């Protein structure tokens, strides 16, 4: 067993985790930042090719309170406004700081270029050309992390559990993926920055690490989650043909810019049958587009792979060349020629609004345990405003690192007993066997869970479907999970990690399903076909925690800001 000790231990090395590490190191803390993949290579950040919302006001006059107003409106009454306000205000500072770190925001004549994105009142979203925002952000942060002597990097370290003693988080148990060795981490503070849970859906835009492990670790440590029923689906994610090296949500801006037509399996336009006009400007609301696509497929009018067609063949080739630029070549590498054939699109799981419940210092109810990035719940309410995910990673990452470091500084660390690690890792021991397991693998069960979540806990839910899902999820937890054979092949035993990931995924799936059953209304991203209207009594946040091995849900008032946006604007002038 390897033992390490640090002031701040950051779990996950995407945008939020790397920012947390930098911020903690700036406070003089020593830091270990770990990722079960490679530092900055895994997670959601590097996958994000799109835009970043920030009221820097380079394109037109703006103020963070306008960004806040748009964020709160998108959140359908459920935004934790204190968190939303921090997100919008500090996004400006972080975007400028990233600029100093040479991320390379697109510019014209020295000023950052900002584009309009859905739901924003003005041009507010910065980006890195062309569809390169996430990789550029990851590279800039990776460089900053590498430069700071106080930060130790741990690639290939899979964190399994947070160790809690006397009600406080004191460390973590991890597995070194390559060697299989157990690693016991003693820490003054722990930041969970391991992303969301969209991988639990069959159609998603996630990396393999987005299976909800941050949420499950938080629950098992005694922290609460909030608003887990709110999963954001992106209406026209790429479905077919197979496309590699491109963001599956890339079609949306082109549909706006160029005007792509959505056609059902019979090559007929259909959006107008759902009360929206899409003729000419193609700006049907995202939720309407999602519903229309879902219904066309359900009624047997889908495209061959179960989506609808997105067609650009009516657009002048010159316009296509101008608007798509170098994308045309990248599409050609995938055998896609938009002048000749349409592509298939479908709603896909894209982001999780719910997450770990924290205060404005990113602290959970367990002292010493912090969260950052998509792992945090509340700032985006019932639907996230376009462009808010990357600033959330920066802003909440910076705060979690800073406040975590301050907490760690005033705290003494006692050596942990190795027994605590042995106990944590004992659970699947009896299921480990030498040699391959021909069937019943954790990955096959994950595939089943993804299909179940997609069909029964997806875009449009009913009480009946949700109950069916809950029953099967609980059965998988008590039966399938405990009975599969795990190949015992070290080093690099991915199958063992798959088992832990499945355990975490099932706990998250149960949380989402239970929360969706309790919310007997439709609001934002939570749409119940059996109860189509929003209800004022549900303008509350839903909490969820573990008591023993039982999930316990409750309701809490939505935190509101105590000032008016006008007051804040006046204070600046």
């Amino acid at each position, binding site marked *: 067993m390897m033992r390490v000790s640090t002031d701040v231990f950051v779990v996950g090395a995407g945008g939020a985790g790397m920012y947390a590490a930098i911020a903690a190191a700036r406070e003089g803390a020593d830091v270990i930042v770990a990722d079960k993949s490679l530092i900055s290579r895994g997670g959601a950040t590097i996958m994000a090719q799109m835009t970043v919302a920030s009221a820097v006001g380079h394109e037109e006059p703006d103020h963070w309170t306008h960004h806040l107003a748009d964020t709160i409106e998108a959140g359908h009454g459920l935004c934790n406004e204190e968190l939303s306000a921090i997100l919008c205000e500090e996004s400006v500072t972080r975007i400028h700081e990233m600029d100093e770190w040479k991320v390379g925001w697109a510019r014209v004549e020295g000023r950052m270029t900002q584009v309009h994105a859905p739901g924003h009142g003005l041009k507010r979203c910065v980006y890195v050309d062309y569809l390169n925002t996430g990789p550029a952000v990851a590279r800039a942060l990776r460089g900053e992390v590498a430069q700071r002597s106080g930060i130790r990097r741990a690639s290939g370290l899979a964190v399994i559990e947070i160790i809690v003693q006397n009600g406080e988080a004191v460390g973590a148990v991890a597995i070194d993926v*390559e060697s299989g060795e157990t690693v016991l981490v003693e820490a003054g503070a722990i930041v969970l920055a391991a992303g969301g849970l969209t991988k639990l859906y069959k159609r998603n835009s996630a990396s393999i690490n987005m299976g909800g492990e941050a949420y499950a670790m938080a629950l098992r440590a005694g922290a609460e989650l909030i608003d887990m029923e709110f999963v954001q689906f992106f209406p026209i994610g790429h479905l077919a*043909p*197979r496309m590699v090296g491109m963001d599956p949500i890339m079609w949306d801006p082109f549909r706006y810019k160029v005007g792509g037509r959505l056609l059902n399996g019979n090559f007929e336009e259909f959006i107008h049958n759902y009360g929206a006009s899409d003729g000419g400007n193609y700006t049907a609301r995202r939720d309407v587009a999602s519903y229309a696509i879902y219904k066309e497929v359900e009624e047997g009018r889908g495209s061959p792979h179960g989506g609808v067609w997105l067609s650009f063949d009516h657009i002048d080739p010159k316009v296509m060349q101008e608007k798509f630029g170098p994308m045309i070549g990248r599409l050609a590498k995938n*055998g896609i020629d938009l002048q000749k054939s349409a592509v298939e699109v479908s709603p896909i799981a894209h982001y999780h609004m719910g997450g770990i419940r924290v205060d404005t210092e990113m602290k959970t109810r367990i002292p010493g345990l912090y969260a950052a990035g998509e792992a945090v719940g509340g700032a985006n309410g019932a639907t996230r405003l376009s462009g808010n995910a990357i600033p959330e990673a920066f802003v909440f990452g910076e705060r979690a690192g800073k406040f975590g470091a301050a907490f760690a500084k005033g705290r003494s660390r006692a050596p942990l007993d190795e027994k605590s690690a042995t106990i944590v890792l004992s659970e699947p021991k009896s299921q480990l066997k030498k040699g391959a397991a021909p069937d019943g693998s*954790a990955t096959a069960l994950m595939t089943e869970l993804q299909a179940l979540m997609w069909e029964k806990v997806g875009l449009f839910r009913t009480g009946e479907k949700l109950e069916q899902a809950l029953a099967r999820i609980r059965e998988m937890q008590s039966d399938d999970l405990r009975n599969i054979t795990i190949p015992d*092949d070290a080093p*690099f035993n991915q199958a063992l990690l798959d088992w832990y990931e499945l355990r975490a995924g099932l706990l998250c799936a149960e949380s989402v399903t239970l929360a969706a059953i309790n919310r007997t209304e439709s609001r934002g991203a939570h749409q119940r076909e059996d109860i189509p209207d929003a209800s004022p009594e549900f303008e509350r946040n839903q909490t969820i925690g573990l008591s023993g091995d039982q999930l316990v849900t409750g309701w809490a008032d939505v935190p509101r800001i105590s000032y008016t946006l006008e007051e804040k604007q006046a204070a600046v002038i």
Partner: protein
Amino acid sequence: MSDDLKTTLNVYRGAAGEEAHYDQFDVPHEEGASVLDALVWVRENVDASLAFRYSCVSANACKECMILVDGKVNYACTAKLSTGTVTVEPLAKKKLIRDLVTDIVPPKERLGSVDAE
């Protein structure tokens, strides 16, 4: 859809210090499928113990899935899966860990090595 087409994946197996052998897996072939798709299929349906790296799922962003495909260095996610036999092996110039996994972690990103300093 071409359900009848298949690929035989010829896969290097073994950990560092072990005698290597090759396993053959018959994998269904779908239009546009990648070598990574085939490897994922094997892990899910035939042999969960097969070791290979990937993280970003076909965005070609993480660059972790670099292996030898028919003797040439390639990303498993961008390498198109052909019909017939396809041989996949670990990178020849990197230290082998197991199966298709090689040591591609930058030295300063290793917890052990940093702690030993």
